[in-house]
């Protein structure tokens, strides 16, 4: 679970635009274990509201597809039955799972949507599980994706997929497409402030500006990040508390907590790439393999480490 307030939305984004120029519609919805907010700008508030409501429906659709708690969701059906026989999934989920498997290979296992059992072993989730058993259940090598047949199969019992943050990224990518099709040219959408989609800019401003505060325990100056036609994702351990009350990130490769990672932020052409990137970077402690246009921000003991293009307008995603 991402921390609740990694991004300082109200102080950093909203003062940039108070709706004086043109119309500004603000909508919200609770989904995917967090709250999504949409800020849409344009000429006609009536059409903007319609577009925003369609975007909310889209977010809820992804929620219904990926929720681990909703027994009817596609991912719940996979988790329940894929160890017995191949489970058919829709092309959208298949594309997302394929991207996650590629990212698992590219990151040498640092990004792993099958990490769930380890969270149980380390007391980050209930019920508890032995570490040996959790290690045996973790790893995307145990997930067989047949893109032609559109099926998912697990090599053993107990494997669990949890799309978490990358699911939010996929939902925001879908929202981006929908808003552009509806003719929306200015939009700022975030899920729980840790997943952000920026379309266009606020009127008379070069970019949507968001502010990354210093992670807890460090005394860094806040980092301002300008966004235009890009997605952003922040990953930090502060949202995940174990039984001892300490924040942890679990390294799926070693099966134990990561030491010394505070916050990782990736600005990328798509939400899925940003989410994969920020999660992998937090575990690895360095910039993972990403497309060259991505900007990365890593909280170090004394300063933010920034890599990538300075002010890339990545165009339509």
């Amino acid at each position, binding site marked *: 679970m991402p921390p609740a307030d990694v991004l300082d939305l109200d102080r950093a984004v909203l003062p940039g635009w108070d709706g004086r120029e043109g119309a500004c519609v603000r909508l919200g919805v609770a989904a995917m274990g967090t709250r999504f907010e949409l800020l849409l700008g344009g000429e006609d508030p009536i059409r903007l509201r*319609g577009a925003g409501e369609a975007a909310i429906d889209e977010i809820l659709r992804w929620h219904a597809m990926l929720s681990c708690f909703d027994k009817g969701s596609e991912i719940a059906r996979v988790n329940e039955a894929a160890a017995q026989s191949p489970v058919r999934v829709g092309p959208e989920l298949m594309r997302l799972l394929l991207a996650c498997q590629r990212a698992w290979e590219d990151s040498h296992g640092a990004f792993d949507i099958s990490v769930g059992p380890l969270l149980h072993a380390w007391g980050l989730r209930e019920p508890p599980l032995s570490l040996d058993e959790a290690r045996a259940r973790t790893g995307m090598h145990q997930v067989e994706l047949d893109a032609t047949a559109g099926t998912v199969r697990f090599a053993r019992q107990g494997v669990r997929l949890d799309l978490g943050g990358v699911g939010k990224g996929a939902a925001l990518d879908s929202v981006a497409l929908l808003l552009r*099709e509806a003719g929306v040219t200015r939009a700022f959408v975030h899920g729980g402030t840790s997943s952000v989609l920026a379309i266009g800019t606020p009127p008379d401003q070069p970019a949507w500006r968001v502010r990354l505060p210093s992670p807890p325990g460090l005394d860094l100056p806040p980092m301002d990040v300008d966004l235009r036609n890009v997605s952003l994702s922040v990953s930090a351990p502060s949202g995940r508390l174990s039984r001892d009350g300490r924040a942890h990130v679990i390294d799926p490769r070693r099966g134990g907590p990561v030491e010394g990672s505070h916050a990782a932020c990736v600005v990328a052409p798509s939400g899925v790439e940003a989410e994969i990137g920020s999660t992998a970077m937090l575990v690895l402690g360095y910039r993972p393999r990403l497309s060259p246009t991505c900007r990365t921000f890593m909280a170090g003991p004394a300063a933010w480490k920034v890599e990538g293009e300075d002010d890339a307008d990545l165009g339509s995603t």
Partner: protein
Amino acid sequence: MPTLDRREFLAGAAGSLAALAILPDILPAAPRSADPLLLAVIGAGRQGLAAVTELQKLDACRIAGVCDLDQGRIDRAMRRLQGAEGFTDYRRLLDTRKDIGGVIIATPTHEHKEIALAALAAGKHVYCETPLAHTPEDCRAIAVAARNAGSSIFAAGFEGRSNPVYKLARSFFRSDSVRDLITMRAQHHMKNSWRVPANTPERERAFNWRLDKELSIGLAGELGSHQFDVIHWYRSAYPAKIRGSGGVRFHHDGREVADTVRVDLEFADGVVLQYDATLANSFEGRYELFCGSNASIKLGWSHGWMFKEADAPTQGWEVYANRQQFHNDEGITLIAGATKLAEQGKLKEGVGLPHSPLYYALADFLTSVIESQPPACSAEEALRSTIVGILANQAVRTGQTISIDDSTLKAS
């Protein structure tokens, strides 16, 4: 409660034996078929795409075609499908894809009739979204065509009739659990403009038919008819009088279709359904409530509860039932498959439906086709609830009381 229902109860239950004994015990199994039935979804707006999502969970069918007047919507559906063909004209779909056995009609309400008649004439099985049509004449044309359709199944999309929670609660209702029905209440509250985004003026007009005064049957028709159907199905009765009012309370964007309505449906026995719907507030969402002298039953889409009066007799099964507190009232959760779950000690896990109500309605449609069984909701049943919805909308628009006689709700 009508005497027929008491007899039904006495015949079905042996004395005070746990009511669960006569209840459907498990969630319906997904329909099975050796060869998946090929289906086409006609209309790829919000409801059509929802059908696409649910149909993909059902192994007994495969979506082979998607049809919409708008290419952008076809593209959106195609991104969610594998191996389907897109059409912008339903006639070409019906002419060229003889391998497609059934169609899901999810177009705007006023387009149902033309497509339903053509699909039935082409020998397809039809699942038609509801309300059935926007005029009584179109409803009758569909009902007549469905009656003369030979071996083709025509199923109407009043989902309540397929919803396992609603079916379970209905068996309680019809076995006299509420005793004398005193009053009924239902609502559909949501915060939504009902406006569909589009990037051209033509599309804007076409997509926003629900806000077009000439075509739309308003909240009472589009939303209300679904809930009226639940009431009709539970009671096997239809209202005799309808009163209505409404207006634009919140969405002051030039629309002429009311965003807030209030309707009273009065039945021949004097019991009244108080119904309201709004697009300006989402409090308590959608529900139907039956209040009787022994108990109340509240239906909330994926959940159902029974609230007992303090002087009502207790039945054995209530002891281990799952309960939920609502301010001062305690609701007994109505859980589909409760007996089996209780045996496994998993009663809590059964609260709420695993799938959306649309899933069960589409699954019922496939079962009807595969097993040549009557549909969960026939065209004639849908006609009656739709016409009540159309008349309720008239009552809202005119403010006049509308009387319904036997001929009003007849198919021909």
